């Protein structure tokens, strides 16, 4: 059991900024910090559960049917999250409801099942799930924050600039997601290149 597995997942192997996986939900839901956070945490939950289960059953699943098995495992957890959220976090579900089923096709989750959990022990897979999940949540919150500040002039629903500020509406529309993600990745790689010299 290595804690470094978890920290690698948060930043060094960040699913969105470094591996550029799961961009569909990333681009779709990040119109505000709250949405990004909610989607990130829901994905983290599914990721942790599916990593644990895939790691547990890795020795009994024949390799030829492993992908359908992973998808069944992931889809089941997503449906459970969907129902639970609808029952207990009804208001959040109203916002994210459309996107929850999309977690099934988030390739970060299938990628971690195939690339990590099916080759490693339960404890490491759990840590990997937490790390990658938190990394995903972090990425969605950053992108959501940038878009909410520029496109709506607020952060977490709290108005920043007063009523005279006229926001760049394009930032909370779909093109803003691409522009925002592109610039964030540019800034990250710029500083990392400079650090390396």
């Amino acid at each position, binding site marked *: 059991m290595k804690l470094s597995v978890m920290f690698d997942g948060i930043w060094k192997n960040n699913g969105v900024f470094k591996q550029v996986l799961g961009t569909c939900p990333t681009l779709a839901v990040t*119109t*505000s910090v709250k*949405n990004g956070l909610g989607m990130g945490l829901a994905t983290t939950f599914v990721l942790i559960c599916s990593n644990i289960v895939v790691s547990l*059953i890795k020795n*009994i*699943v*024949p390799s*030829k*049917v492993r992908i*359908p*098995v992973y998808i*069944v*495992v992931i*889809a*089941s957890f997503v*449906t*459970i999250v969907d*129902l*639970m959220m*609808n*029952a*207990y976090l*009804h208001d959040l579900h109203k*916002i994210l409801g*459309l996107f929850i089923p999309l977690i099934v096709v988030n390739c970060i989750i299938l990628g971690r099942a195939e690339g990590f959990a099916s080759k490693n022990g339960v404890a490491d897979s759990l840590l990997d799930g937490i790390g990658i999940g938190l990394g995903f949540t972090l990425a969605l919150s950053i992108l959501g924050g940038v878009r*909410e500040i520029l*496109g*709506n002039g607020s952060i977490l629903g709290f108005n920043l600039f007063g009523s005279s500020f*006229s926001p760049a*509406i394009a930032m*909370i*529309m779909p093109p803003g997601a691409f522009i925002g993600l592109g610039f964030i990745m540019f800034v990250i790689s710029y500083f990392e290149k400079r650090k390396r010299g």
Partner: protein
Amino acid sequence: MKNNLSMIYILAIITAIAALLLSITYNGTKDKIEEAYRQELIKALNVVLPEHDNHPDKEDINIDGKSVYIAKKGGKLVGVAFKSTSSKGYSGDIDILVGIDLNGKVYGVEILKHAETPGLGSKIETDSFKRSFKGLGKEDKIAVKKDGGVIDQFSGATISPRAVCEAVNNALKFYSEVVVKNPQLIGGVK
């Protein structure tokens, strides 16, 4: 051959376990979800109807396939509410709940379901927008200002408020053409 069969068994067993887990979760959350939707309706009804002391969500009558919720105070009718839909939203239908008082004026509007652009069209959910319909009747021009009406549109989003206006107009039309002629309500509304 043996390997091929085990493939089938294992896939079948795993899907069966998944199905079992899902049915347990579904049964566990079913009532809670229904209750959440009911609470949502009650909350919306309390906003759009004048002060009442009955349970409008339980006292609904079916008129032309529409549930009309009836608000009473001390046994006397004070208003009705029903759902109205516009398909002219920016993305998908907009479902609203409209409450109408005995003078045939809008008492309140609540957005039940929409898929408008977050941060733009979704501003139809703000209280100040919903309040701007209060007191309007079928003789008022319910339309966005761009179309010569009395409702404020938002910068960058005209389509969504326009769709809500359409839904409110539909509701008033339904009220004056169908609801007031309903025998169960005659005498109470004009």
